[in-house]
């Protein structure tokens, strides 16, 4: 075990996978001598060379389409989109091509490939460096979408993603990069795609979250325990698609109360599916209202600190809603 932040955990896992398998190549903007704007590929160009560490032109659709072609011809590409906000030009390649290759060929072709994407707010990124994009892609059959929130999960899920026979969209919350630290096993362990994780056990209510919000929920949960002695069970979704309904429903059936917290625009967001799933499958086990906390329905957050702060669901607001629900 070694304590690492999220950036280091991802850097090390990616590095070790590349060292072990030369079919793996990384491609993206500024990932070479610059080491990536978030330093995930720091030093890679010197160790693996520019044939395996490819600084691409400024063209996201091409980056994804190129990775697809590489995957079709025996490589294991790990593409980086510089910011989640800039993945939109690649929407057609991801939705029409990457996600559908296996299905449209009736299983004749498969596409092992990973698209790494730094997402999320709280870093003064304003409208175009703060977006959440999971709702768009979780809805796309054929694509797996993971969003780890801790260094260990990031490392373990990245290894699973690289070894997965199908395409994986790998979401890394920018604010957690250096903020969140934790113990990471030194051996090449994996965390399975498709399993949510109970990050904190409790019996009074269930709180479902992912990304930065998971940590805010954990903080609110500790405060709830300190101030009221009540225990929130906090579930880290980890894999947004396919969604691990079982873990969520088991917890809700146990606590009888549920709330879902996410940073993205609230309406038609990923949290809607989680709430809808609980409502459809566990409504009669509930003894309290079903709550959802999401970001306001405006395009991401403003640059001004006052606007960014007003956008992000904060620990205090989450705590207050937890309290109401627990007391209900």
């Amino acid at each position, binding site marked *: 075990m070694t304590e690492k932040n999220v950036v280091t955990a991802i850097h090390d896992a990616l590095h070790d996978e590349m060292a072990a398998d030369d079919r793996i190549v990384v491609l993206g903007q500024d990932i070479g001598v610059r080491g990536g704007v978030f330093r995930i590929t720091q030093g890679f160009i010197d160790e693996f060379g520019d044939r395996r560490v490819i600084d691409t032109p400024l063209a996201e*659709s091409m980056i994804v389409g*190129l990775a697809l*072609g590489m995957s079709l*011809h025996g490589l294991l590409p790990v593409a980086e989109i510089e910011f989640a906000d800039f993945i939109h030009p690649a929407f057609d390649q991801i939705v029409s*091509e990457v996600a559908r*290759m296996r299905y*449209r060929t009736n299983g004749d072709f498969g596409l092992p490939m990973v698209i790494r994407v730094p997402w999320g707010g709280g870093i003064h990124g304003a409208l175009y460096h703060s977006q959440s994009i999971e709702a768009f892609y979780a809805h796309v059959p054929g694509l797996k979408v993971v969003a780890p929130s801790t260094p260990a999960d990031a490392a373990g899920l990245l290894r699973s993603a690289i070894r997965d026979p199908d395409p994986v969209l790998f979401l890394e919350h920018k604010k957690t990069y250096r903020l969140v630290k934790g113990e990471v096993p030194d051996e090449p362990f994996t965390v399975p795609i498709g399993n949510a994780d109970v990050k904190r056990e409790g019996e009074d209510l269930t709180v479902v979250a992912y990304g930065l919000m998971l940590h805010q929920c954990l903080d609110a949960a500790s405060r709830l325990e300190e101030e009221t002695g009540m225990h929130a069970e906090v579930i880290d979704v980890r894999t947004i698609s396919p969604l691990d309904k079982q873990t969520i429903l088991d917890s809700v059936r146990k606590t009888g109360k549920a709330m879902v917290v996410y940073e993205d625009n609230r309406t038609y967001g990923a949290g809607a599916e989680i709430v809808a799933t609980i409502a459809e499958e566990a409504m009669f086990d509930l003894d309290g209202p079903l709550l959802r906390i999401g970001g306001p329905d405006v395009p991401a957050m403003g640059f001004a600190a006052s606007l960014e702060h007003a956008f992000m669901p904060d620990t205090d607001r989450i705590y207050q809603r937890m309290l109401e629900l627990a007391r209900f």
Partner: protein
Amino acid sequence: MATRVGPETSHEALGLSPDDLLAMYRFILSARLCDEAAFRLNRQGKAPFVVPVSGHEGCQVGTAYALQPGSDIWLPYYRDLAVVLVAGFTPKDIFLGLFAKADDPSSGGRQMPSHWGSRRLGIMSHSSPIATQIPHAAGIAYAAKYRGEKTVAACWFGEGATSEGDWHEGLNFSGIHKLPVVYVCENNHYAISVTQAQQMAIENVADRAAAYGFPGVVVDGSDTLACYAAMKHAVERARAGEGPTLIEAKTYRFFPHTSDDDDRSYRSREEVEEAKHRDPLLVFGRYLTEHAIADAGTLDAMEAEQRAEIDRQIDEAWSAPDPDPRTLEDRLYAGGGE
């Protein structure tokens, strides 16, 4: 500015034997006959959707024949019936797709007809959205080069496809890395009803190659040997590590865009009839007779035999089983259903 290749006079100079020429003619003929049969089946209500190839067979066979089946990679688009025949599809494979049968090699009846794909034959599956396969070709070529193979990736598309961002992005990357890829534009001057003049401000798509740092070549698409010559040279360059080539074959689509289209609204019958004077089937047939590769009788016999063979394969395809609706959710992910 793009260079021009052809007219090509001698097949010997190209290293093509009489057998090669007859094989090429057979592919052109077979594609033409598949087309006619498909429209017949469409009128009979047996084939809901047909994408015609007629008019394009010459440039398709001419370019495709210069590749190495088994090792080179094919990235065709929906118009490329003749390309996939050269790549190894049988007429039966074509009609299994047309009838959306369970054994359709491209998609098991999931995709529309003419959305080709076969891992075994190295034909990369494509979708309906235009030009998405261009960056795929670059990625495949990059992987082939990375792995130290001599593989060449060839990618076909219409002139309308050149307007999509993916086309620009894919060619740009190919040029930067001098990738072993050949881009073939089948310029039939229409994107459904949109004319070339509405599509671009230039006369030759091939001139765009200069924007990406590699050569562009314009060739007469009804001159099968000229297309072969241009492709042969491009493939050699690619194998030699000299990078991509953009070949533009000027061609014409004899039928409507698809069986759902009515082309009378956007082009005159005279224009269509005029174009048929340069029918690649006639042009190449004439070459064979003039060079005493075959006489008219041989070609007629070949046609009769092809017709019978195709009809036989159509019957086999027609009687093949439909996809089982219970497989609807299979093969979305690895291991998902057998």
